């Protein structure tokens, strides 16, 4: 059991995860932000390793990735920074990014270095299920890394079952809905989709991501899932600020509604 699976065995609701891009807003920010987030009350972290062409992300995270690349962030640099991770941070940490930088680093090397740094899991949105299962799954298991897959409103039940069977951490439920019509408004449709997935009684906990930005959206997500992930809103908050660390406690307490 890694830190992530331990967290889910102990905490079943209102789990808050924060995404941020390594090397943004400055190259040395990675561990400082992690410490500040843990102190402020985040339950687990997703640290993004930047990619030049992040198609699953919007303009805010693409911008942070480009700044991070310009700042000199690479996977090599990130793993170097993460050597001190477990002296400073005790909550679960996942790495999130695109498959190409990982392939260049070597999937084996990536898993080895992630495990050595005390990373608990990975999210690679553009790694296909088939390739993951055939080529890489054993490597993740060998290094005790949870592998997280995404599910969208359009994902079929059969595919959700398959994803559930390949997951060992949580299922990342995307809130974006692109279906139209049928007389339902968008939020009703999203609720029906959350209900549908929850009713499947999956093995893995559900964490909702994309579009979670404040207390209202966090609470709403928690009605249906075990927790939620905030990315863009956090990256915006720490962007372009000299004293970015000092904004973190307020940001977290506002979302959790504890102030």
């Amino acid at each position, binding site marked *: 059991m890694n830190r992530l699976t331990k967290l889910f065995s102990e905490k079943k609701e209102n789990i808050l995860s924060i995404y941020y891009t390594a090397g943004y807003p400055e190259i040395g920010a990675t561990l400082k932000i992690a410490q500040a987030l843990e102190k402020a009350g985040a339950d687990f972290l997703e640290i993004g390793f930047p990619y*030049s062409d992040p198609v699953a992300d*919007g*303009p805010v995270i693409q911008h942070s990735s480009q700044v991070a690349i310009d700042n000199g962030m690479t996977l090599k640099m990130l793993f170097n920074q993460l050597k001190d991770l477990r002296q400073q941070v005790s909550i679960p940490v996942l790495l999130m990014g*695109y498959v190409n930088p990982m392939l260049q680093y070597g999937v084996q090397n990536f898993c080895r270095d992630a495990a050595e740094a005390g990373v608990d899991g990975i999210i690679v949105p*553009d790694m*296909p299920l088939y390739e993951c299962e055939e080529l890489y799954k054993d490597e993740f298991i060998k290094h005790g890394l949870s592998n997280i897959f995404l599910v969208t409103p*359009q994902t079929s039940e059969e595919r959700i079952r398959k994803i559930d069977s390949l997951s060992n951490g949580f299922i990342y439920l995307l809130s974006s809905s692109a279906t139209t019509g049928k007389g339902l408004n968008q939020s009703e449709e999203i609720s029906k989709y959350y209900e549908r997935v929850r009713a499947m009684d999956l093995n893995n906990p559900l964490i909702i991501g994309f579009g979670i930005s404040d207390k209202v959206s966090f609470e709403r997500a928690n009605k249906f899932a075990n927790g939620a992930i905030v990315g863009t809103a956090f990256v915006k908050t720490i962007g372009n600020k000299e004293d970015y660390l000092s904004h973190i406690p307020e940001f977290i307490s506002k979302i959790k509604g504890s102030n």
Partner: protein
Amino acid sequence: MKTNYRINEKGYYGDFGGAYIPEMLYPNVEELRSKYLEIINQPDFKAEFESLLKDYVGRPSPLFLAQRLSDKYGAKIYLKREDLNHTGAHKINNTIGQILLAEKLGKKRIIAETGAGQHGVATATVCALKGLECVVYMGEVDIERQAPNVARMKMMGAKVVPATSGSKTLKDATNEALRDWINNPVDTHYIIGSVVGPHPYPEMVSLFQSVISEETKKQLVEHTGKDQPNYVLACVGGGSNAMGMFYHFLDDENVKLIAAEAAGLGVNSGHSAATSVLGKEGVLHGSRTILMQTDDGQVVEPYSISAGLDYPGIGPQHAHLNKVKRVEYVSITDDEAMQASLLLAKMEGIIPAIESAHALAQLEKMTFQKDDVVVVCLSGRGDKDLATFMKYFNL
């Protein structure tokens, strides 16, 4: 054992291909994958595709024996005249196929990416023909460089959306189009313009473009009595005209296939798009292929004087054909391509697209036997490049 050059049941050409896409795109791509072969083999689809290629595009495009060029090089040089197609390039073969497919899938909205604007124009054209909404993503930098094509698209009713992220060129336009598709998965079809992207796009686009080599074989029999030339040449950016030109020759092992990439200011100048030399294996725009990238796996911005070859990767089938050495990939600089453009204009009265001139430039570097039969794919016409020619040659 004979090497297999074609796609396998998993969507791979050897080590390359696949569908490396975020889950948000899975339903769209899966819908295409599971239906495209059945649809394009239906008799009514085939009939409409062939009729539009004939009466709207103007096919078959001629195979022209370039006599003065032949005398100069000491071989029989034939030009496959894709430049004579409606809209001025081979791109329309693919957009006709995909618009018919989109109709069969019940899609109401079409999106596309474009670099120089040729594929954008070809997409706007078929959308106007079919009365479908059309949105074309184009890098902000390219919109400035290619004003006439932007105007063409607008005249035909397309909305041209500037891609303002990253380097603001073709690869960023592709990212924006993919994002649009993520946000509009149900009613929208994405017409990719080259043999790139997640499976089944590379295969589908090369099938639609394969009409080029299908016609060439028949025309060669009329001209020479044989359907196999000694050499077939085409230029490669993403590689769609080359795949179309090579398609029916792949298994004719005695036909030598040559693909010309853009070396820009020189392969090692830092301003180049010669992917087969500079690229490493990785994933770009949804498929495993070779691409120009840093050691950290960040995509490198390519350069070529020709906007259509200015792409940091090549299609997965090209990556495979390069690896198994079925096709020889060569590098042509800006200057070599520009001189080849001028030569064709002066000797044959044909102004080629600068893209196509990369293939023509390779002729200078080859030695031929007197009876050699050579086919060069003249993928597009040079009208769109006039501003570049005027500046380069001080016209």
